[in-house]
């Protein structure tokens, strides 16, 4: 074993960043991450606030339009909340052993498999309903316009619901199941 240890120690680690470079990297990393997060929160927040103000201040808007906008905003909140909760789980994770970490990852991915798709369905239903309600005010006075726009909208919804959604869910489930399987295999190694 001592021979093997001697070989192991010959690994060169001299091309790692110097301490000063590493400090620069960690600061850059923090700034970049914070900047990205701040920007996405600002953009989402401004988007929601502008939509709420536009809808509530525009005079004589039909109830269906207001309800439509509310549905779309609710869809955004549902999807954002799922992502924030998933990120928070990792942030809240304290110092833990490999065994605890593997079981945490396994559980996180299992939760994702069960709940993520459910919230995605909720988000899709809300945004589709919102879109159909929102359209009504602009097309309801003309039968031809209503037919064209509602055919297009419903066609798009059917395509997303019956083709795109099952495809992307299948892909997600496959990936998550493979990941869970790998974690199960590793968990077996720490028994």
């Amino acid at each position, binding site marked *: 074993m001592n021979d093997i240890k001697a070989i192991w120690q010959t690994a060169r680690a001299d091309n790692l960043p110097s301490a000063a470079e590493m400090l620069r990297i960690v600061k850059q990393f923090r700034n970049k991450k914070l900047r990205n997060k701040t920007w996405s929160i600002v953009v989402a927040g401004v988007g929601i606030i502008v939509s709420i103000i536009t809808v509530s201040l525009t005079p004589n808007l039909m109830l269906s339009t207001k309800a439509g906008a509310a549905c779309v905003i609710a869809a955004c909140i549902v999807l954002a909340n799922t992502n924030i909760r998933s990120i928070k789980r990792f942030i809240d994770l304290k110092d833990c052993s490999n065994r605890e970490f593997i079981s945490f*990852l396994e559980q996180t991915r299992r939760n994702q498999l069960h709940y993520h798709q459910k919230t995605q369905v909720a988000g899709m239903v809300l945004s589709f309903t919102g879109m159909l309600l929102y359209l009504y005010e602009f097309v309801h006075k003309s039968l031809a316009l209503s037919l064209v726009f509602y055919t297009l909208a419903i066609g798009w919804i059917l395509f997303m619901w019956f083709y795109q959604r099952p495809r992307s869910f299948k892909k997600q489930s496959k990936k998550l199941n493979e990941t869970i399987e790998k974690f199960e295999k590793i968990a077996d190694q720490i028994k």
Partner: protein
Amino acid sequence: MPDFETIYLTYSPQIFRVCMGYVNDHEQAKDLTQETFVSVWRNLSGFRNESKISTWIFRIATNNCLRAIEINKRTVKVELPVNLPALQEESDEEKLAFLYRAIGELEEMERIIISLVLEDLPQVEIADIVGLSAVNTRVKIHRIKEKLAKKFRSNGQFE
């Protein structure tokens, strides 16, 4: 509490070697080492000395390695040559490459445990990092050493 710079200078070569043992890929090991120290830097103020600082850092590093599975960055597995005659004058680089390949053939947790053993960490600390009992860790270390020695012997080395 040592400052970040001291911690980095003390532990980065060890962390790099452990990551290298796990992934057998120089660039990925470098990335994992950097990710480890980004986590260390971010959480250093919250570190409450509940465990040894080395245990804490090795836990972050090995957990990072385990999580690499999710992004499908996998170790490039190279089959070990069978019945290859031992080289008379093998260079240090060749010996090291053989060692990494031999470790790369082990299971994920075995790779982590043997890397920590080769870094001369006490068994109690390895048990703490991995999350096994001391007895179980000792048994596992013994088995992994046997496996590794067998691979070296079958390649005609260290006889």
